[in-house]
């Protein structure tokens, strides 16, 4: 895929035309200003929530490449998140590598992990694949619990660094700086995924999702393309893990390899927003994260007797979506015609008949 920087900039500029452009610009502007407002007004809870929304947007978008586009529903993405988180932490803690690089390497290691797992896992069809991803995720958790070098069950935590090293180690108080980093990652991810989706690879993935058997007759090697999807998906999920590491500065296997708070949350964000849409995962994350966080931070933390309420609420949300809006929020909007599905980089509707020959 040979795309020049100028073409990418052109693509971005084209997105900014018309109503769509205005909406995108407004949202981007809001997101850029909000952290400053939160910081000034000393509102850590909304800021934290915003960061979580962005983090899960990153994770859910990555997840959806494999789930919505390729049809492989994984409930084990915590593997890549955890691998990314641990890689970033280990490089930082043991080798003094700056997380600016560490996060990126975390993504690569996560991608390689995905590659290795793909060989056994992609032999499985439908829910057995999903089950295997859950089992694999549990295995990773258990292994990391027993593995002394990475801290075992106690986890890892870097020391506080002096302020002149804050930029190098990305150690800042509060969520505010990290929101901008998350925005940057998300922005790059959106562009990268958009390019992939609108290329041969993106179409091939969807063919695999629709009918693997038929796809083979069209020249598509399902295993190869599932692997490509896995690499991309795991890469960005791993980077998300790295972001988690620098923000929360404490990781342990129970947190980063968790089935519910990582894997299921990611899947719910994607499904709630709409797994057959492009930005569905982001919308899903921004809807359900605030709800869950509000319940968790305002109710559960204050009343530990009701621990689990936020997940209970999550279950209700998931059930409602499954039964009444399986296409997700964005999918529903598309169905009602409120949003137009702009299919591609190159819009076929604009092609006039005489241009074909």
């Amino acid at each position, binding site marked *: 895929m040979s795309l020049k920087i100028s073409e990418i900039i052109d693509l971005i500029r084209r997105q900014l035309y018309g109503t769509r452009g205005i909406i995108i610009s407004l949202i981007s502007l809001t997101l850029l200003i909000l952290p400053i407002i939160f910081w000034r007004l000393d509102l850590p809870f909304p800021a934290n929530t915003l960061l979580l929304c962005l983090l899960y947007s990153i994770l859910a978008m990555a997840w959806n490449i494999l789930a919505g586009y390729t049809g492989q529903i994984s409930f084990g993405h915590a593997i890549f998140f955890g691998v990314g988180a641990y890689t970033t932490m280990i490089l930082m803690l043991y080798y003094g590598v700056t997380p600016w690089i560490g996060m990126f390497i975390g993504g690569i290691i996560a991608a390689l992990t995905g590659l290795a797992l793909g060989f056994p896992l992609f032999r499985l069809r439908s*829910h057995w694949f999903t089950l*295997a991803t859950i089992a*694999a995720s*549990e295995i990773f958790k*258990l292994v990391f619990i027993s593995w002394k070098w990475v801290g075992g069950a106690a986890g890892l935590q870097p020391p506080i660094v002096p302020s002149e090293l804050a930029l190098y180690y990305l150690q800042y108080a509060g969520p505010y700086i990290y929101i901008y980093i998350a925005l940057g990652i998300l922005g790059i991810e959106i562009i990268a995924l958009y390019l992939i989706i609108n290329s041969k690879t993106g179409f091939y993935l969807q063919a695999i999702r629709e009918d693997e058997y038929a796809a083979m007759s069209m020249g598509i090697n399902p295993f190869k393309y599932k692997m490509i999807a896995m690499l991309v998906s795991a890469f960005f999920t791993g980077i998300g893990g790295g972001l988690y590491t620098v923000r929360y500065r404490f990781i342990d296997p129970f947190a980063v390899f968790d089935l519910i708070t990582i894997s299921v949350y990611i899947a719910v964000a994607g499904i709630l927003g709409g*797994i057959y849409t492009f930005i569905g995962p982001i919308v899903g994350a921004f809807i359900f994260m605030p709800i869950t966080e509000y319940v968790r931070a305002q109710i559960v933390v204050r009343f530990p007797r009701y621990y689990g309420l936020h997940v209970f609420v999550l279950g209700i949300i998931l059930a409602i979506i*499954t*039964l009444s809006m399986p296409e997700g929020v964005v999918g529903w909007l598309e169905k009602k015609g409120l949003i137009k599905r702009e299919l591609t980089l190159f819009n076929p509707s604009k092609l006039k008949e005489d241009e074909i020959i």
Partner: protein
Amino acid sequence: MTVSLIDLINAIINGVLIGSIYSLIAMGLALIWGVMDVINFAQGDFMMLGAFITYWLLALAGIDPLISIPISFSIVFILGVLTQKFIIEKILHAPLVSQITATFALLLIIRYGAEVFFGPFTRRVSTGYTGIILRYGAISFPLTRGIAFVASIIVTTALYFFLTKTYIGIALRAVSQNRIAAELLGIDVNKMYYLAFGLGVGISAVGGSLLSTFYPIYPEMGAFFCLIAFIIVVFGGFGSVFGAYISGIIIGVAECVSALFIPPTLKDVVAFGLFIIMVLIRPTGLFGAKLGL
């Protein structure tokens, strides 16, 4: 670390005993899968409900756990039928994603609903015979586990007769083998689905009730047992109900024996690893058949 023959024998016996409980949960899962082609991710949580029903019956009404079993079964059976009617039925023909999320949502609602309503506490069921250990020479095991094993055998035998000797049971098997043919024979497939799901989770609840007599209960306990159940079903062959029973015993033994040799934290890795290996090399499991016997 030296392991004596006695340790090994004790491990095997305890493995068989605990395996018989795993089997109940797995059989329910296999039944549901065999008849309806649905993976019930919430299977372990219905088991948890059974355990809690037994606990509350004992705590509030002084009812002995063994007597609570039919009550626990009935309650969860009804819950299962309701679940089938209002949730599962709606997604039977929906894309894969919806099928997965439906039972997963169920998992979250039941598991964490229990945590919210019952509280995140661990509880124990203790009766007059709770602490008794049976000893035969150097072999020993708790009486409660022994009773549970016997009960498990009884339940399984009852299930066997139900599936092979009663009209409804045979009709159930017919649906699992060929839905359309069964319909043509006049079988009401929808009612069979209610029965299958209710029965499947009901048996799991029985497992939970039995489990509660020798194992601590807590709302999130379903997680572990569900994964074990999946491993067993895969091992024993999708949809093969009694294959699930046998392989449950095998898995129980494997778990207990391997606990002699590897650190406890890695014990579950063995089970999960077995699962992945099994799914890869022999996807039909050991006894693969559609609700075979």
